[in-house]
């Protein structure tokens, strides 16, 4: 099972990484209100830094937890901010700014996952190389790899429901809001995700064992 799949079309490749850490001497997170931030974002032509400083942490966390340890993590984060900058004029209420940012991040991840699913189905693209991990804890690294291997086999919407609920620890209404569906639909998806996940874990004795070791299945098998 591949931990993650390469998708060369998944992110915007027109902006290559410029590893110019020297270009930024210091970054100070936005200290003002979201109302003021929104006003400046909608009026300013150079709002990228403001937006990034305010939401970098939220976006990185959301992408990390929904996509997993992915070699395209930085590209996806970049794509999220590009989408945010392109559509910031649509936001009308400042208090919903953060929720909107998270939703855009989830939508971007959804797009990446869908493309990967299609590419995988038609066997297009190369298998990405295994990312080396410097994690010292072998059991922990294995848990991570195997868990996302199972999540990769879930349908995109079920996977998002599962990760938002159990990795991001969102409440069910929040999960529904971020997925853009009703609460009932979110509950249904989550239930299906749990069932599928359980079934898939039983196919992976190592993960089953790892989980059992931690007493996650009622402790002790």
């Amino acid at each position, binding site marked *: 099972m591949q931990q993650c799949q390469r998708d060369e079309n998944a992110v915007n490749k*027109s*902006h290559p*990484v*410029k*590893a*110019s*850490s020297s*270009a*930024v001497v210091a*970054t100070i997170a936005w200290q003002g209100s979201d109302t003021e931030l929104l006003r400046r974002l*909608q009026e300013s*032509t*150079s*709002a*990228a*830094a403001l937006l*990034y*400083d305010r939401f*970098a*942490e939220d976006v*990185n*966390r959301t992408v*990390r937890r929904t996509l*997993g*340890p*992915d*070699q395209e*993590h*930085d590209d996806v*984060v*970049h794509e999220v*901010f*590009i989408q945010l*900058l*392109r*559509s*910031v*004029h649509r936001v009308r209420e400042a208090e919903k700014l953060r929720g909107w940012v998270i939703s855009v991040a989830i939508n971007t991840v959804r797009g990446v996952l869908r493309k990967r699913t299609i590419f995988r189905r038609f066997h297009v693209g190369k298998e990405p190389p295994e*990312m080396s*991990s*410097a*994690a010292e*804890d072998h059991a*922990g*690294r294995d*848990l*991570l790899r195997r868990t996302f291997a199972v999540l990769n086999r879930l349908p995109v919407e079920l996977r998002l429901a*599962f990760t938002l*609920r*159990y*990795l991001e*620890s969102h409440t069910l209404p929040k999960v529904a809001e971020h997925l853009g569906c009703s609460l009932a639909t979110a509950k249904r998806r989550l239930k299906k995700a*749990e069932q599928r*996940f359980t079934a898939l874990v039983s196919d992976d004795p190592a993960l089953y064992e790892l*989980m059992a070791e*931690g*007493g*996650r*299945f*009622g402790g002790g098998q």
Partner: protein
Amino acid sequence: MTSPFEELGESVVEELDRDPRVVFDGSRRHEQRARLIAAEPSPGRAWHPWRLAMASMAVALLALGLFWALNRPPEPLQCKVRGGRALAAGDWIDAPQGASEVVDFSEGSSVRVESGARLRIFHLDAKRVHLAVENGRVESSVHKGATWTIGAGPYSAEVIGTQFSVAWAPETRRMRVEVKEGMVRVRGIGIQKGGIEVRAQQRLDAHVDTREVRLRKKPETEPAGSDARVELADRGTDTTQPRARRAPPRPLDSRWRKLAKEGRHRAALTAARRSGFGRLLARLTASDLLLLADAARLAGDRPRAGRALKALRQRFGRHPAAPRAAFRLGRLAAEGGNQRSAARWFRAFLAEARTNDAFAGDAQGRLMVALERSGDLRSARKQARRYLARYPKGAYAATAQSLLREK
């Protein structure tokens, strides 16, 4: 109590947040920030809902305007009797004996209906003008633009910007076209497929019964305004030898016509049968075929009425009488209990006739009844809705409503 998934999630998050591949540290922050600033897109223009609505409305209006411009119905031509009333499709002009009437068209054309002649207007719009000389001689001066067709018995003259005259004598069943300028294409009985071109200073004489067609140079010495009726009537004794296309057939007996016009339908049908019903079908004009069909129907001979109507449609498919023949065929089929056939004929009529045809409402109603009686209730109800939308107080409105109520 935490569920196994929550517990798993906590462990995974713990691992994820310290995984160096995705950990959010200072160097990653700097790289992402610098990359974003370098690639900052220009902010999108705000599309407020009202702007979007305005734009959608503008696009819709533009599309509507374009659609209207491309599909607008042609402006009807206006025409009126000089110094008299306005005319419309369906009207006719009778010129009194000893005087002529001039019909002026709004695009500049004019038609002179000479003494004792009768001209009927079949169709009139910016694209097509269809007139029919029922009797006598008409002289036309046609401007380029619309397609002009002037019928005369079983003949028709298609006009392309010209001055010409058409004369028709129903008694002797002779037709004459004389062209002063331009060109006219004449079609009809005895004329080869594709018609005959009659050019400037030419005259075409045609005779229905003998199928003679003669094209010759118009005599220069002929006095202007010579009486065409006399000329056409005298053609039988014309000393010039017509070019015979075949042995002249026996002239048709027209007694049946007289009897039919007098309302003596049985006698008319008997006379027609004596004269040779099949021969009549092959040679009568469209209006005579309608008359014969009516005589047969009213005499109770539906099969012969049907034959006459089908012959009309077969021989004069584009004649204005063809849709009427379809309507009558529908009525015959309905009377004979063949509802499917009736529906087919009424549909043919509705497809061919003008929407404001006097029989259109009747045909729609009869179509609905025929569909219902043939068991096609779904189509009948559909037709009932269509009928009620167009003729809410029509003769078949009650039937249509009861049909819809039965649903």
